């Protein structure tokens, strides 16, 4: 099998090359087939790989291809590492990737063929980079993929490059990622210096012997990278803007896969994090606060995609919380389930938008239940899943996270609970405003309302199923001992789930779970009353709601305290320092010479007398110097 692993990333790359170079010559159908076909192929391959890794006594496998850099004592091989974690991610990426490709074939119909091809090329390239990221056996290869996905998200956010807002969003995304990447890069250098290598195996092997401060520093730097990629405070603002891209892109990149790269990275280097409690706490705190903040903002958003975007941010926050409290499995678990239902939700939203002719404001929707039955049903499942209603996928992963949080500290737990309650609230607000009540849009919109084609509904159904059953791979010990297939599966990489989980008495767990669930149900019913059939519309202007609607004014804040000053500073350098001072100095020398030339000319008076006088004076000076000064 190993000798074929390279095909998994290569196939999407080939698809990218074909679609990219021959976009003007391929037929639309062919483009779609190639685009999705390569992905399906690598999905199949990934299945094989996964199936291999599930085998008993499976050993982590390194496949080295060639030396990327080998000079000056720096040796960086291009090599892949196959283990449970990467296998799982392979599966998620290729699987959901394929679904979204299929979905896109229909969703992007109204694009002209070359752009259609361009879209798929980008998408393939993205998958390629993502696969590189998870397959790499050292941090540099990971970094290559890391920046690659950043590039693709840049390209895809700015896919409709005619619109400058989109371009700005794209730029914002890339630059913010770059800030994180710098942290990543420095971490890489530090590891190189500390361990003399950046291969996972060696680094983790030597990590234990390294001084704790070093590990802490490295892990914090790595986490900064994760902040950028996974949209955590303070670098999260790019993700909502990134919704400028086509909806499937949002589903794939900005919900299911790319944004989870940060979680993958930390989970991958869990060994180091476990050695650095400080950075763990940092991760946890950042995670939970992000989750909370994003959730609050999501409460008041009216753009269907914005809501989902903020919910994504908040969910990512929860995942980091999990990682922070050391429940790596839970984090990865939530990544998986979240991938399912968030992709589902986005695609559903896409279907709605498709039906509404690119109308995204939920205030102009409503009562779509009848018009879009499948979408509605699947969307509902998604909502239930994300809200954590058993037995949907979200419930299990979230519950696991919260339990872990509780063990760490009740505060984290409480905040987590608040987050999930708010989650339920805004998700169902979204649901009700969209599907229930009566239609609030224009007439010809209403007239054109239609259920999406099969190519779009099929992925919805599949994902709905997954969001339904996806969680069952991680039945908590509470229900059945050793039913947590995922953790046992991942244990070789992430270690056995922390034993403290069993310190909580089952009764307590039951109680908490019950309370949480009741809260959530109450929230849902509350939203039903608010935004259900008798919804009159709301005003989101004054007071807290206004602040929330304006996202706590964070963007404005950043503009005021970072962007503007830097811009002014740059202007100052360009206009004053460079032009006036430095160049002025250089030209000043020339001017000085010319000036003194003009002055010296006056010595040349043309008068013999004065000439001779000067001669005499200098002779006298010479005499005095020669005779009396020495």
């Amino acid at each position, binding site marked *: 099998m190993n000798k074929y692993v390279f095909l998994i990333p290569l196939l999407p790359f080939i698809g990218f090359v074909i679609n990219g170079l021959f976009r003007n010559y391929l037929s639309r159908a062919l483009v779609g087939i190639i685009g999705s076909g390569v992905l399906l192929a690598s999905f199949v391959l990934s299945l094989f790989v996964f199936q291999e890794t599930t085998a008993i006594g499976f050993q982590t496998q390194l496949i080295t291809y060639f030396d990327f850099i080998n000079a000056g004592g720096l040796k960086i091989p291009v090599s892949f590492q196959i283990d449970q974690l990467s296998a799982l991610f392979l599966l998620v990426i290729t699987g959901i990737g394929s679904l979204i490709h299929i979905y896109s074939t229909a969703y992007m119909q109204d694009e002209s063929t070359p752009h259609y091809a361009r879209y798929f090329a980008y998408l393939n390239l993205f998958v390629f980079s993502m696969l590189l990221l998870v397959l790499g056996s050292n941090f540099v290869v990971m970094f290559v993929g890391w920046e690659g996905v950043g590039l693709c998200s840049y390209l895809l956010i700015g896919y409709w490059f005619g619109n400058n807002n989109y371009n700005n969003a794209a730029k914002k995304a890339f630059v913010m990622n770059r800030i994180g990447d710098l942290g990543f890069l420095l971490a890489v250098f530090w590891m190189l210096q500390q361990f003399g290598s950046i291969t996972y195996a060696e680094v983790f092997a030597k990590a234990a012997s390294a001084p704790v401060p070093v590990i802490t520093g490295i892990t914090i730097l790595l986490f900064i990278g994760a902040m950028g990629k996974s949209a955590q405070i303070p670098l999260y603002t790019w993700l909502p803007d990134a919704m400028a891209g086509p909806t499937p892109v949002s589903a794939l990149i900005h919900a299911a896969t790319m944004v989870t790269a940060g979680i993958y990275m930390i989970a991958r280097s869990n060994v180091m994090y476990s050695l650095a409690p400080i950075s763990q706490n940092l991760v946890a705190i950042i995670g939970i606060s992000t989750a909370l903040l994003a959730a609050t903002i999501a409460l008041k958003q009216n753009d269907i995609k914005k809501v989902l975007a903020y919910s994504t941010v908040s969910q990512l926050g929860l995942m980091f919380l999990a990682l922070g409290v050391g429940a790596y499995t839970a984090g990865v678990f939530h990544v998986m389930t979240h991938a399912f239902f968030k992709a589902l939700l986005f695609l559903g939203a896409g279907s709605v938008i498709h039906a509404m002719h690119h109308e995204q404001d939920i205030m102009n929707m409503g009562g779509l239940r009848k018009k879009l039955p499948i979408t509605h049903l699947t969307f509902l499942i998604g909502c239930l899943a994300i809200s954590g209603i058993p037995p949907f996928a979200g419930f299990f992963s979230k519950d696991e996270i919260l339990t872990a949080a509780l063990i760490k500290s009740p505060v984290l737990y409480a905040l987590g609970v608040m987050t999930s309650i708010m989650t339920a609230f805004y998700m169902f607000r979204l649901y009700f405003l969209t599907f229930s009540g009566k239609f609030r849009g224009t007439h010809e919109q209403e007239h054109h309302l239609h259920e999406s084609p099969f190519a779009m509904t099929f992925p919805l159904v599949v994902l709905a199923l997954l969001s339904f059953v996806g969680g069952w791979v991680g039945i908590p010990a509470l229900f059945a001992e050793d039913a947590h297939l995922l953790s046992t599966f991942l244990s070789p990489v992430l270690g056995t789930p922390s034993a403290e989980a069993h310190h909580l008495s089952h009764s307590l767990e039951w109680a908490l779970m019950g309370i949480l669930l009741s809260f959530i149900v109450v929230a849902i019913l509350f939203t039903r009353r608010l935004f259900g059939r008798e919804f009159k519309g709301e005003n989101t202007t004054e007071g807290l709601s206004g602040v929330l609607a304006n996202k706590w004014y964070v963007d404005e804040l950043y503009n005021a305290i970072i962007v503007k000053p830097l811009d002014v500073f740059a202007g100052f350098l360009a206009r004053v320092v460079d032009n006036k001072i430095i160049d002025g100095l250089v030209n000043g020398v020339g001017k000085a010479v010319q000036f003194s030339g003009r002055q010296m000319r006056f010595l040349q008076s043309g008068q013999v*007398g*004065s000439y001779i006088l000067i001669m*005499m*004076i200098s*002779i006298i000076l010479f*005499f005095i110097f020669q*005779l009396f000064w020495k």
Partner: protein
Amino acid sequence: MPVSEILFWFLTALALFSALMVVFSSNPVHSVLWLIMVFFAISGHYILMNAQFLAIVNLIVYAGAIMVLFLFVIMLMNMNTESEPQKSQWMKMAAAISGGALMLVMIAALKDNVGAVSKTSGEGSIGLIKNLGNVLFTEYVVPFEISSILFLSAMVGAVVLGKKESSKIVS
């Protein structure tokens, strides 16, 4: 005080006085005449130093030929009465000061200088035409000949400049 010494001081005084008059007399002709006086005084010094040859040459060449030439030119331009406009006052100042300074410096540097010159013809007679002639035409014949080039060029030069070529003046 022996005669020769008296003569020395007299000639010195005469030379310096006439020299000053050369500089300060406003009438060029007077300057010329005073200059001639200087030459006479200097010749006197030569004689005191028993350098007869030079004394004679000095009189003939300088006082005779050269000064007559000067006089001739001055007359030619009939400047005998016209008193030239004086230089600006500060220039005079500067001239006087720098001149004085130079003199001071030189004298200060050379004052403690031992060595002597015999006043009378008591000792060797190198100054006599015979001896000088010997040396000149034996050891110094080369410069003597070469100075002929000098004269030639001076002659040609004078001719070149003297010849009247074109009358129109370009300024």
